[in-house]
């Protein structure tokens, strides 16, 4: 059985890794510190998949998650900071 890309499952929202420049801009726009963002574990299966695409993702990087199932606003974007473990 080949490895299944969970990002292709309809229930898993799209995940993207922000570039360092995008990170700076995002934090500037939101007016917050990196640590205030919600977290995602480095051991999260999604990060493993993203690492295949972007190379190793060290803690502190920001993941953009695009959800399209918000009951109030339709599309809703969240950002999560990668933490260790």
């Amino acid at each position, binding site marked *: 059985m080949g490895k299944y890309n969970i990002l292709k499952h309809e229930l898993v929202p799209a995940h993207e890794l922000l570039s360092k420049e995008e990170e700076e801009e995002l934090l500037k726009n*939101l*007016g*917050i510190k*990196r*640590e*205030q*963002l*919600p*977290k995602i574990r480095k051991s999260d299966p999604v990060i493993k998949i993203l690492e295949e695409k972007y190379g190793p993702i*060290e*803690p*502190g990087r920001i993941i953009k998650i695009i959800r399209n199932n*918000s*009951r*109030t*606003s339709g599309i*809703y*974007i*969240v*950002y999560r*900071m990668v*933490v*260790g473990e």
Partner: protein
Amino acid sequence: MSAEISKGIKEIKFALLSPDEIRKMSAVKVITPDTYDDDGYPIEKGLMDLAMGTIEPGLKCKTCGGKVDTCPGHFGHIELALPVIHIGFTKEIYSILNATCANCGRIRLTEDAIKDFKERINAIKSKLVDVEYDDIVSEAESEASDVSICPYCHFENKKITLEKPTTFREEGRKLTPKEIRERFEKIPDDDLILLGLEPGVARPEWMILTVFPVPPVNVRPTITLETGERSEDDLTHKLVDIIRINQRLRENRDQGSPQLIIEDLWELLQYHATTYFDNQTPGVPPAKHRSGRSLKTLVQRLKGKEGRFRSNLSGKRVNFSARTVISPEPFLSVNQVGVPIKAARELTVTETVTEHNIDRIKEMIRNSINVDESSEYKPAVNYIIKEDNKRMKVTEKNANELADKLQLGWKVERQLQDGDIVLFNRQPSLHRMSMMAHEVKVLPYRTFRFNVAVCTPYNADFDGDEMNLHVLQSQEARAEAEILMKVQENFLSPRFGGPIMGAIHDHITAMFLLTFRNRKIAKELGIHILSYVNVDKLPPIHKDEKGKEYFLGREIFSLILPEGVNITFKGKINDKIIDPDGTEGLVVIRDSKLISGAIDENAVGTMKGVLLDYIIRKYGNARAAKFLDDVTRLAAGVISYIGFSTGIDDEDVPLQAKAQLREVGLEAIRRVEKLIENYKEGLIGPEPGKTLEDTLESLIMKELSKAREKSSEIASNYLGIENSTVKMAKSGARANMTNLAQMAGIIGQQSIRGKRQHRGYTGRTLSHFKKGDLGAYARGFVTSSYKEGLKPTEYFFHAVGGREGLVDTAVRTSRSGYMQRRLINALEDLKVSEDRSVVDTEDSIIQLVYGEDGVDPSRSFGGKSVDVDFVLREKFGDKYGGEKQ
């Protein structure tokens, strides 16, 4: 880079007190069971020794020198003549006894096994999972207890049993606490980790008491009764018992008394020690007072609803609050609450005397003189607080003197007066509308009263419900309550973005009576009705053929509408028989004149009131409150003067209808029998995904519900709008046509969990039926009506069905309450910050935009941020042909 993540409590450690520690923390060795001498002075080395602190204002603590308010209290100790078992550790003692060797003290596991277990423990050490550690310990202990020959000294261990509560036996021979203690002393520190103990902070022998800690005096204060008699705390009583028996035991032991006597006394000491910790230990008769009341000892102080945790730590009691029964009062505004004079005179607001209010306050102080509760209520002053915070009670005698002495900067606690802002609350407080701010209106009698439009948010009725009232004490609190918590500020529910308050029950009936078919109301009567409402003009006067003057209901209703109301919407009436041309069901208001349609639940009812919603949004909360107040008053007037009543004869149907109804029931039963016959002959095939039996059941259910619908239809046909019950059902005031049909026609199938009744005896529901009877009657179909009364079997099935409802609500409330509490605890300190993001106390982001769309549902239009139709209709009026409400 490393991320900063906030931390909470990492670990809590529990340890055992060693005898040395108990002695070290002790301020005095207690040796006599006496408390006070004849002068009432604490006896030295007694249970009330001053070294353990003091509870008498004049005396100083011998240990710290502090007085009552500064001394924290200090422990003492009792040296026990012989050790006793601590009742809280019997389970641990039992498992340790069976897991270790009686001879050498090692755990009865091989070196390899020990190494194995220790490795597993080390592996989970870094993780915060005590459950796993507990599992490993119990695994090690049960493995060790299966071994009887010690792997180290080859001693043959015997099985030890626990005879509840505190007797351990080794093959029948009783083990004394002393022996157990000696065995435990031999257990090496290295093995403790496998027994669930941490070396250094806990030794197994410490579970057997040789020294007994005596709690500080202020933990068990002496109570002096009014008669001057002293009464000791239950814990002190128990300690007296322990010291007495301990003394006798020591004497007997030292004298070398017979073993039997010593054992008896030892047993007694164990009993007192056990009940000192827990007076409800199973198998131990509770220690009792002379009066027969059982003593409240340590465990009883903490446990249960009245225990320290649930009663004192989780429960909070407040001052400036009142509680009494509630009752309705249509002449109060929705924003008001009627407070009984008795309560108003007890509840106070603190006011600081300034040059602006000094004259008013002086007069209030003098109001304490010659209070006459039969005349108009005048607030008086209960206490005056001088600048040095000295309080003086205002009495009839000193009122004049105090009023003259009153100075700027002093404070007074004045009684409640009309217009004060208070919080009003009914438990269970399930949503924020369970606690709202009201304006006080002081009234006679003994109940809290309010406008029935606020019954819905409080979920209150008047069958004996009680509510709480809290008087706000600071200007800031009053301002905040008025802006955020006032009833009118909570008209729109944050749950669905519509009005949660509105007319209910009789108010809907009254509005319906007034406006349905534009009722003509004799001028005389109309003026009486209008006297209930504050209106400054009369509706147009019409004359009938005989020259009698009358008003029109819709024109009376139009008086209470704000100016400029233009709205069209569907009413609740949707019935071709009652309303053939559809004019009653379509409410049209033009320039605040009700042109057509009946005002019913859809116009002014709770959660549905379209007109109410329109007024709230277009004219604001204050005007909406006025409208609701007027609806309430008008309704009271209308229903008082027009009159409305319902009785059992409202459910009378003509003989012809009765025959039709009976036929419906019989027909249903025949059809069911036919279905069963077909089933038995194998003529019914299974529906997809169902067994044959299920298919039959669903076909029968379909047939039976058809019967009830039919009976409902027949009932509706014979009961017209002139019928009071029908009026209530059709206007949405109370009940529905199905309830009516059940009273007049057929009650219908009684089900449990959506199925026909099938449980009870083998093969049948009741012994009244044949085994295997699948017929309608045998499975809970009720053909009687509530009015005729049910047959015995029907009555039973009905009770079964009713019980399911009760059980469901009981289960649901406890479960949803638990879920809600968990949610509240998880979310309680989240807040919406200025940029609309949701953050916690550490400013960590929970949501970038509140609710993902940034909309406050209680400021929304049914959840949407803008109601485009509303805006366009307001702008273009009838020219805008868009969606009608």
